[in-house]
């Protein structure tokens, strides 16, 4: 008989059978089963393979402490990778397969790797694959690494909801202590939330016959009813996976299988940790054999799922929980032998099928070895919050010590393992009454790994870290537990050390002859159990991952066949037309030079500075002198950081004595606004300066090119556009069909340009009028790509592209304010520090290439010609200029201004070429077209 299901008991629903398969074979389980409990009930022992040696693995624990049973699960045609079998609830029709095994867990082709274990110890690949070249081995190792594979269908639509909430008392864990505390707190009038990661609260209570005179089921139901009656909330299938700053607890609430969990960011005034404890493995020879399982896990399988782990059971335990556990298993029909593990060397007998256990030379036949090396409180969240741990000799465990603000631990998580004491403690803590001293009948004998002992003794089951690996790490001086972990990968398996850390650090303590508390633990970090990345990204996926700002005129651009792309956080037309981007861009450049281009420049910043101190403020903010700027006039200038580096460039217009408009770069507007606000409030009188960012109130369309004036003249604006009446670098406020508009004569192309700004809701009218007027002279829309070429032809820079973090204005040819400006301005003193005066500063220059040579690669290095070439700068912008008929480039070059005419070597990805340094302006250097 292979069924391990007993006929009654447990929380499963025997009236609802579920069919599923594992590694190609079909099985039956029940509603309420986990994948592991259902497989165990069917007599399946081998559920996976270890990571490195591909050793057969059976389940160790019944819940979050199992590192071995990891499955890919297909349901509804979609495969989900790396589902922990011990905590994944069975659903009808699940198709499961073991990870890291082929063709199946019970027969794995790579099982032969285990024969090589002598050569595959800790750190083997650090040592082995360095010669002759790691890259030779990398592809093979990458193929062997990792567990299950993610399929694209899983990612599509797999998104977590994210909720923010708060409560007065958050109780983590719905076992005996958690339930008692939640009820007591809720009945004292507190706003309580209780989270429990199982489907059904109750913790280990179902292993008992009775609780306070009731059956466990009745007692749990009563507590839950009382909590909810008192206004408390109970969240099952919900894991508190981390405690973050200011008592924000991350909760992952499971939905139906295949759906991403929901994230709750729960802010709690008080956190009560009732997360329980888990059984520790015992380190002995062949302790990784399938059939060596956690005693507490076996009791859970029996109590919750009606599954008896074995027929002939050896119980190997060092503590007082063994007797009731053995009694429970025997009552369910197993033969049980209790064995004292402290009498001598231990060895499991058998291989894939367990035959027995040998202790101090004496053999005991058994098909199952249930192990308990003592209880380990789950103190992860305590440590996340910064709580201290104290080593407790009585319980042989690290227990919560000094508490973090607003946090308390109760029950088994606090080392209070006996039920009566735990309930008393929980109620006292919940009611803010003094808690009783830790006490109890729980007894445990010290039992830790013995360095030097015989046989292969597993410490980390999934990652194949053995006692010998810990000894090796110690010999090689990886003695800190943090180094030990990284060198051996101990504790880095799916269970993140829940089963292995205590044995690992105890082994290191023994090797070094130090007490366990002196060796200490590794850092506990969230998440407590693995969580999908989707939990953290939430709705911020797809278009909402990095949402772009959208233009008011987007529908019109789309209608004009615009190719849209991201430019500085905005979705903007790169060019117009489908296919052959380079051809379209080229045509747009030529159009702008020959007739005119119409560009949507709406993202340009429009930050107004107003107030009695506005003038002195902008004069302080700008590198250039602004206070002499007259109303209706515009000036080009730089904003610097206090280190003197160029932060942004652009024009500033003066609308009136107390009113300026800063037209900062499209992608820098938010940054500039914050920069202005900071200086406004720190060092200035904020009652006399006000900053309004009106960028999105106004849409701006630029008409640039020799025919620009004709096109703008076709608009119904009462405005004299002649060069005399409306010269370059001035601004006019007027109306278009009665709607206020601002028209600025500024140019980023080197050609005659008009920038027309109008409220965004009217921008469509303006666009259509300009396009209609443009059509008659052969002008039309141009995108950002054409603008980038046009401005480079003129030698106009883009901050952040043609400048870098050390660029100062005099590196760009703007040295006058540095010498002449009397008033203080941001960054002023930095422009006269030693670094600013160095003669090898990288300066803006242009580059030409030989006739017929291709454009220089953007980012290429300019290297000296010495024996050891050194980067003296780089190409920042490079285009094949349609206007000039040859490639042009801008770049930053050491002492560039003094090297005009010099040949420089250019290096890019191993390729060398050369270029001639020139002035950065290639087009209309006299500015005749600009001022037309």
């Amino acid at each position: 008989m292979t069924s391990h299901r007993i006929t009654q008991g447990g929380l499963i629903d025997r009236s609802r059978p579920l069919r599923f398969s594992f590694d190609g074979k079909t099985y039956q389980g029940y509603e309420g089963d986990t994948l592991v409990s259902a497989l165990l009930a069917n007599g399946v022992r081998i559920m996976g393979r270890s990571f490195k040696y591909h050793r057969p693995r059976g389940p160790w624990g019944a819940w979050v402490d199992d590192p071995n049973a990891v499955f890919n699960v297909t349901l509804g045609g979609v495969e989900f990778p790396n589902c922990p079998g011990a905590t994944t609830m069975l659903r009808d029709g699940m198709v499961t397969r073991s990870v890291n095994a082929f063709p199946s867990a019970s027969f794995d082709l790579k099982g032969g790797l285990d024969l090589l274990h002598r050569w595959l110890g800790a750190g083997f690949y650090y040592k082995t694959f360095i010669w002759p070249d790691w890259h030779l081995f990398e592809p093979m190792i990458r193929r062997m690494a990792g567990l299950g594979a993610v399929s694209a269908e899983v990612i599509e639509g797999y998104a977590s909801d994210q909720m923010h909430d708060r409560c007065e008392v958050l109780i983590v864990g719905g076992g005996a202590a958690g339930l008692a505390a939640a009820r007591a707190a809720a009945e004292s009038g507190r706003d309580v939330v209780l989270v429990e990661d199982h489907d059904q609260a109750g913790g280990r209570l179902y292993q008992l016959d009775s609780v306070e005179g009731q059956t466990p089921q009745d007692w749990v139901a009563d507590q839950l009813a009382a909590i909810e009656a008192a206004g408390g909330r109970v969240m099952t299938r919900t894991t508190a996976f981390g405690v973050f700053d200011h008592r924000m607890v991350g909760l992952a609430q499971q939905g139906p299988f295949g759906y991403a969990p929901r994230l709750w960011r729960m802010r709690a005034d008080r956190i009560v940790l009732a997360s329980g404890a888990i059984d520790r493995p015992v380190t002995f020879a062949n302790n990784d054999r399938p059939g060596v399982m956690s005693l507490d896990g076996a009791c859970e399988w029996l109590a919750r799922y009606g599954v008896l782990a074995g027929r002939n059971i050896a119980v190997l335990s060092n503590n007082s929980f063994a007797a009731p556990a053995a009694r429970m298993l025997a009552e369910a029909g197993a033969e049980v032998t209790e064995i004292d593990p402290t009498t001598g060397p231990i060895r499991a007998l058998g291989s894939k099928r367990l035959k027995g256990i040998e202790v101090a030379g004496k053999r005991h036949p058994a098909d199952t070895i249930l192990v308990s090396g003592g209880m380990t409180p789950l103190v992860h969240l305590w440590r996340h919050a910064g709580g201290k741990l104290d080593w407790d000799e009585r319980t042989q465990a690290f227990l919560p010590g000094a508490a973090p603000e607003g946090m308390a631990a109760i029950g088994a998580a606090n080392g209070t393992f006996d039920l009566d004491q735990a309930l008393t403690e929980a109620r006292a803590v919940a009611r803010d009454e003094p808690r009783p001293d830790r006490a109890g009948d729980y007894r445990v004998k010290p039992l830790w790994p013995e360095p030097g002992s015989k046989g292969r003794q597993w410490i980390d089951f999934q990652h194949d870290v053995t006692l010998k690996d810990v000894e090796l790490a110690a010999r090689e001086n990886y003695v800190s537990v943090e180094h030990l972990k990284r060198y051996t990968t101990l504790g880095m398996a799916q269970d993140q050390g829940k089963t292995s850390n205590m044995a690992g650090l105890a082994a290191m303590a023994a090797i070094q002859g130090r007490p366990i508390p002196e060796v200490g633990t590794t850092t506990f970090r969230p998440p407590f159990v693995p969580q999908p990345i989707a939990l953290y990204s939430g709705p911020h996926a797809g278009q909402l991952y990095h949402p772009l700002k959208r233009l008011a005129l987007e529908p019109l651009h789309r209608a004009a066949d615009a190719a849209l792309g991201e430019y500085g956080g905005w979705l903007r037309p790169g060019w117009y037309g489908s296919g052959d981007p380079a051809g379209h861009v080229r045509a747009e450049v030529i159009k702008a030079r020959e007739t005119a281009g119409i560009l949507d420049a709406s993202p340009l910043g429009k930050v107004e500075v107003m107030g009695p101190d506005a003038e002195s403020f902008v004069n302080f903010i700008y590198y250039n002198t602004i206070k002499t700027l007259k109303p209706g006039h515009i000036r080009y200038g730089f904003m610097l950081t206090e280190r003197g580096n160029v932060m942004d460039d652009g024009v500033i217009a003066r609308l009136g004595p107390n009113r300026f408009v800063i037209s900062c770069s499209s992608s820098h507007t938010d940054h500039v606004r914050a920069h202005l606000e900071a200086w406004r409030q720190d060092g200035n009188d904020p009652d006399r300066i006000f900053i309004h960012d009106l960028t999105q109130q106004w849409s701006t369309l630029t008409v640039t090119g020799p025919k620009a004036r004709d096109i703008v003249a076709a608009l119904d604006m009462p405005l004299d556009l002649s060069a005399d009446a409306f010269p370059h670098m001035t601004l006019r406020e007027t109306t278009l069909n009665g709607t206020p508009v601002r028209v600025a004569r500024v140019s980023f192309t080197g050609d005659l340009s008009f920038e027309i700004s109008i409220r965004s809701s009217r921008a469509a009218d303006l666009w259509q009028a300009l396009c209609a007027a443009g059509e008659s002279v052969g002008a039309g829309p141009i995108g950002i790509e054409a603008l980038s070429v046009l401005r480079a032809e003129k030698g106009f820079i883009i901050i952040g592209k043609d400048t870098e973090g050390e660029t100062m204005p005099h590196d760009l040819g703007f040295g006058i304010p540095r010498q002449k400006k009397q008033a203080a301005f941001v960054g002023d003193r930095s422009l006269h520090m030693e670094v600013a005066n160095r003669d090898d500063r990288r300066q803006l220059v242009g580059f030409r290439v030989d006739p017929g040579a291709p454009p220089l690669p953007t980012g290429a290095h300019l290297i000296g010609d010495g024996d050891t070439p050194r980067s003296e700068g780089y190409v920042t912008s490079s285009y094949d200029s349609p206007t000039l008929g040859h490639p042009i480039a801008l770049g930053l070059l050491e002492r560039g201004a003094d090297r005009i005419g010099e040949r420089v070597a250019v290096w890019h990805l191993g390729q060398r070429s050369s270029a001639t340094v020139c002035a950065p302006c290639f087009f209309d250097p006299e500015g005749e077209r600009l001022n037309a």
Partner: protein
Amino acid sequence: MQLFPCPFCGPRDEREFHFAGEIGKTRPDTTGEVSAEDWARYLNTQRNEKGRVREVWMHLTCSELFVMERDSVTMEVLSSTPLREDVE
């Protein structure tokens, strides 16, 4: 995730805030002589204290610049006051 108290808006999620610097720095008067050492100290010297710190933060949604006292080890917020002294 931390909760920072904006003196005007009250407690808000840390994602609404931006660190603006340690408090106590005064910009030298650059219309007069400022030695390179003084300027470098102003630019570069940070106390970077462990424990109780006083810092300037900006609440981005309302642009308030304010002084927050907090513990750089425990992350506890100890006080929060407007940078300007004439308001509450």
